């Protein structure tokens, strides 16, 4: 009994195994970009950019990428984990990990699972505990939101720091290049009797 569901679920689990969860994606990353980016590790079967309906703020995008088989999926994860892999920008690397059942919103029901529920009237002795649990749920979701906010702040901070660094590097680079190209370095070299050419 329940075989169709079981088969369906088994097929779904197989799909989960060949799927990779990728995050830290820029909002500019589209399905096509992601597909092309990961095609080098195997054959991308489908890409689903996970829509964000709940978390406020601009959190990085994440996506589910279904590969041809679970071997390819593993390869993607290990490649991306070993070397920083960048899509559509640098230097922030993307992250990847094997997908999980809960990541799919179209997951089928688990076969033979029993769901039980009941209504608790305010007179019920458990009502207070349930109330506390509800309260916890709210609290936890607020904490989660706060942590997300903090994380975003951290990310911004790092990004800013790096941007400054990059600017400084670039300034130095430009300065050197300028000095080299307009002959100032040569003149100074001659003045101080230094050889400037590398040969």
């Amino acid at each position, binding site marked *: 009994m329940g075989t*169709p*569901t079981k088969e369906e679920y088994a097929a779904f689990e197989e799909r989960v195994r060949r799927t990779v969860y990728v*995050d*830290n994606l*820029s*909002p500019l990353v589209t399905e096509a970009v992601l597909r*092309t*980016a990961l095609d080098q590790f195997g054959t991308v079967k489908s890409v689903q950019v996970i*829509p964000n*309906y709940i978390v406020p703020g*601009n*959190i*990085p995008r994440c996506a589910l990428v279904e590969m041809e088989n679970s071997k390819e999926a593993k390869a993607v994860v290990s*490649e991306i984990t070993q*070397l*920083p*892999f*960048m*899509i*559509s*920008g640098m*230097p*922030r690397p993307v992250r990847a*990990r094997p997908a*999980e*059942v*809960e*990541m799919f*919103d*179209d*997951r*089928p*029901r*688990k076969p033979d*699972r*029993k*769901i039980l*529920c*009941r*209504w*608790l009237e*305010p007179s019920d002795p*458990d009502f207070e*505990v*349930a*109330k506390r*649990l*509800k309260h*916890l*749920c709210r609290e*936890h979701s607020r904490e989660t939101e706060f*942590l997300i906010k903090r*994380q*975003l702040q*951290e990310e911004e901070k*790092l*990004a800013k720091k*790096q*941007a400054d660094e990059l600017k400084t590097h*670039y300034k130095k680079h430009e300065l050197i290049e300028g000095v080299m190209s307009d002959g100032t370095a040569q003149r100074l070299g001659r003045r101080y009797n230094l050889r400037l050419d590398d040969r």
Partner: protein
Amino acid sequence: MDDEPEFKWGRRRGVGERYEDIQYYESFTYGGIEYSLYDSVCFYCAGSPETYIGKLVKLYEITPTHEKKVRVVWFFRPTEIRNHLGDVEPHWNELLLASGQGNGLSNINYAEAVIAKCNVICTSKDRRNPQASEEELRRAHYVFHRTFNVDNNEISDKFPEEIGGIKVEFFFNKKKYQQNQSQPSLKAKQPSQPFTESPRSDLSKGVDSPAKYPKPPGRNDSLVKESERGTSKATVVERGCGSSDTANLKRLPVEGGNKPGIHVKDKSRVRTSEMISPQNTSDTRPYKKKMTVLNIKGPTIHKGGPNKGEDFGVKATSKTFEKAGTQLAHDKSAKTNNQVLEVTKRPDADRRNWFKQLPWEEKLQKAQEAETLVLLENLDPSFSSVEVEELIWHAFHEKVEARMTQFISTFSKPLYGKAFVIFKSKAAAQSAVCELNSKYLVLDDGRPVVGRYRNLRVSDKATSFPGHLVLDRFRLQKQREEMRNAVSTAHCSQSNTVEFEMAMEWRILQEKSNLWWKDLYENHSKSITEARSRLKLNRGNFVAFYCYFRVESHEGGL
């Protein structure tokens, strides 16, 4: 019953190519009115003040059973599709012609279900459309110049080549000679004041009635008067378009003579319902109704989807489902539930068939606007969307559409499952949230389900992304390149570059964030377990609604 209106077929057109049992006709006369192919007609629609308007594109009889059928391509009243109007502001008497392929485009109905002719003029500037004269326009009950695509719900002023397999030319205004053809017959039937003879008087009435009083309060009086005066049929007919009460009056001039209006009305109504709907209360209603409901509420769950007319089995079942549904709402016994849960599976099947076209995101948006969107929290994260739908069905006896949210932004598994649930109506959503707050719905692992309104995140189109650095100088040029060539933008970093160094900094941050999420979730789960341990939950009180599922899972298996 005794004075069943006369039905007569007009000229034959030929026999069906595939089915010899089908005889096509060019016209028919019913209740003294001659309806020809490509006429616009009104259909009575039970329970709605408005009639449905469509164009007859096929008239035929199934010879063995003598069933008289018409195929209709629908016009939409703007109110029927108001959710898809966007910033389109329709004219008061504007209709939109259905186009596309999907459900709601056309239906097959009993010929007897037609209640009146309706003068619909196309005002499109399309070159294929013979332009209507000003007088024709004034005489028109309705005008249309746009199409509504039932597939993607788009409104367009372009007309495709074909609609429902019928050349679009037939939907435009008739060429002059065609009009002349049909009018003499009118004259013959209605010698009193056909508008062809006295355009002036007719004009004044024609404009008078539909224009100024689409639903006049005292319309019955005026109607009766008009019919006594023997007004041209057209005037009475278009009253019929205005309201269902008066809809049946259209036969007044034919058989009523100058009987008191009310009397005739009642009579004719009885007859209509008997005549048209041996199987069902109304033939026209269920079909188009479905479409309408869909359009208004988007994700509403309506079963009995298959729409290709003739199959009454389907219709009958859809009816029973509806009945079962209503019954059920009041009946909590497991037995009926069992029966109904079969129904709950239906939405799924339906969704697969033709709701697919509405992406979930749009549905969410619409539901938010309609305030039917509720976010359920504290679900078991492993629940599937279907299970949530069933949970809601079980708890509230509401058919809803639900989807678990996919978790994002963290690498760790969330402890709380969340699902967006779209209720059928605002009231249903409100009462569900209210109920969830006043008494608690507890799952068997002790989770009380939390439900609340939650607005969707407004997605702003962010173009910058923290951590992606671009030197100002190269910014513009670079982005354009990226668009063109995606591969060049994805690469692994080499270890001897600045980029690599910076990437490592990000990696560190990512690792850190993993840790703090893990920490947070551990704390959470600790406090949850502690609180839950205090629950004394009497297991016997739990209701398993598993047993019903099995039935439907078989059904829905393939």
